[in-house]
């Protein structure tokens, strides 16, 4: 399936913001691709640039303070070179996005049906009545009970989980080829999250969209993604299939992240309470250019080479790219 050209190809994307305190280098040379129909997980903690990457793909960054460079090729067209009207034709139709906070991402003064219908009316030119009909279909698709009634309701009348379903309905209304989901379940309770993830998996097979799933929750990534990239300080530090990344993490940051995540079932293996691995120090400031490896200040295996020379991202194992001078290091087999 991935033998043909990738659906989305990001080449050396750089997104910088000019602020009073200096230039913030939110995304610094990130490259990756997404094939049609696959789910790519983008993992990292706050400040790593994953949300800014998503916003850059959809050209939602306001360009007076922000500046983008590089190429974002969607089906061969460079999105960074398109005009705003051309970009508007793509947003919502070919590429759509769901955001983290369903509370603030829905317009509180428009009905749910109106908001879903808006996308359809804009891209397919149907009448308001047909758009409402389509909205009802979408609400049924995302599993909202009594859709005929719900379509006339306002966001505040729905619960958090339902609002997120509405967001998904809006995003999928025109059958996009790429869905960018920015922390779609972070603000939801865990049982609701399970519902939403099940829904997303189900819809993906039906609609056939590729998904770029951005999250800091490694469990969600493991469940949903076929391929994963790990971001740190605006850079991509590791990329591979989900199995490779989880079972054989090579970059010290990824290993630190895996180790610091508590896993359910830990009480079954140990006798007492166990300690989580910590990553010492904190994320470097993005206002200054970082010399050498971005993780050098926190890496337990750091050497002078790391501090002086930034590692390039290279293939270190089958289907597995790492940006580290000293990878591969084989994880200890238990």
């Amino acid at each position, binding site marked *: 399936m991935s033998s043909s050209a990738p659906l989305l190809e990001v080449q050396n994307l750089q997104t910088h913001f000019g602020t*009073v305190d200096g230039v913030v280098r939110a995304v610094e040379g990130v490259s990756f691709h997404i094939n049609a129909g696959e789910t790519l997980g983008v993992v990292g903690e706050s400040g790593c640039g994953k949300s800014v990457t998503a916003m850059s793909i959809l050209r939602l960054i306001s360009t007076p303070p922000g500046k983008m460079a590089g190429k974002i090729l969607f089906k061969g067209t460079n999105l960074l070179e398109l005009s705003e009207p051309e970009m508007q034709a793509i947003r919502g139709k070919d590429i759509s996005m769901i955001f983290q906070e369903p509370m603030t991402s829905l317009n509180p003064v428009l009905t749910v049906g109106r908001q879903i219908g808006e996308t359809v009316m804009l891209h397919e030119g149907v009448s308001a009545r047909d758009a409402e009909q389509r909205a009802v279909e979408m609400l049924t698709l995302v599993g909202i009970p009594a859709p005929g009634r719900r379509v006339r309701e306002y966001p505040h009348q729905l619960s958090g989980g339902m609002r997120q379903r509405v967001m998904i309905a809006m995003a999928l209304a025109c059958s996009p080829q790429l869905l960018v989901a920015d922390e779609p379940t972070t603000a939801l309770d865990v049982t609701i999250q399970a519902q939403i993830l099940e829904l997303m998996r189900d819809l993906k097979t039906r609609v056939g969209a590729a998904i770029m799933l951005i999250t800091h929750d490694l469990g969600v990534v493991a469940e949903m993604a076929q391929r994963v990239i790990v971001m740190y300080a605006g850079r991509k530090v590791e990329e591979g299939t989900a199995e490779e990344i*989880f*079972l*054989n*993490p090579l970059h*010290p940051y990824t*290993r*630190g992240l*895996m*180790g610091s995540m508590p*896993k359910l079932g*830990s009480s079954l293996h140990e006798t007492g309470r166990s300690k989580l*691995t*910590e990553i*010492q*120090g*904190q994320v470097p*400031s993005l206002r200054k250019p970082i010399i050498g490896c971005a993780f050098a200040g926190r890496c*337990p*295996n750091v050497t002078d080479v790391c501090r002086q020379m930034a590692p390039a991202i290279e293939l270190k194992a089958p289907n597995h790219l790492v940006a580290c001078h000293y990878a591969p*290091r*084989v*994880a*200890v*087999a*238990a």
Partner: protein
Amino acid sequence: MSTTTLPPDGFTPAPKLADVLPPRKERSKLGMFAYRHPTIAVGGFMVSLFVLMAIFAPLLWTVDPTALAPARRTRPPSELYWFGTDMLGRDVYSRVVYGARISLIVGFGVAICAASIGLFIGLISGFIRAVDAVVMRIMDGMMSIPSILLAIAMMALTRASVENVIIAITIADVPRVSRLVRGVVLTLREQPYVEAAIAAGTRTPMIIIKHILPNTLAPVIVQATFLCASAMIAEATLSFIGAGTPPIIPSWGNIMAEGRALWQVKPYIVFFPAVFLSITVLSVNLLGDGLRDALDPRMAKRI
């Protein structure tokens, strides 16, 4: 099967050092400050100019502003009389320069009094529900009367003097400040750090002083600058209609009032005080805008 829960080979956690603190920001120099906050710089500078002008009025080549010289009345601006003379032969320039004193005294006086009283009332109302219900209804009542009319009514009850002008305008402006403070206090009360202080055993008066008060100061200071500007205009209005500063004391409103009859033939008597008043008010407003922009985002600053 390899597991990812055990620390991999060589990945030993660093010894438990204290976290490294981010480096402290270098103290901004005045120039840096002006660059980052141009409105404060410009507004503040202009206001300071007027204050200096008011303080050093006798040294600014002025003559006695109340000296009558009917022989030289209504002369146009010339080398001798920079702004001309009015209908009683008084030097308009000197009157305008001395008039700054009144405007600034009233402006700052009202700002300080209204802000302090409003702060006090707002703090108490925000914290004690019983007081809130009663006091706020009174404030609402006062706010429903246009402040200038309220001031005129107050002035009608007493004799004209600068002190009474300040009192009248203050009374008219206190409700607005107390409403603002009350709103801020209501939000602050719900903040986790206030709950933490209660859990730490801090008594209510201390909570108000240590936790609530410092965080209400920023909006109050901004509001005070706007009060200053509007008070200056209020004073001019009151004086213009004869209900403000006694005519013997030169104030911009008084000067304009006296020049009103002649303004079509001798516009300079009205023109100069009007220009000075406008620029002063503009500067104070600029300062207030700049302060508001500077203080608000800082409160929500995160790393």
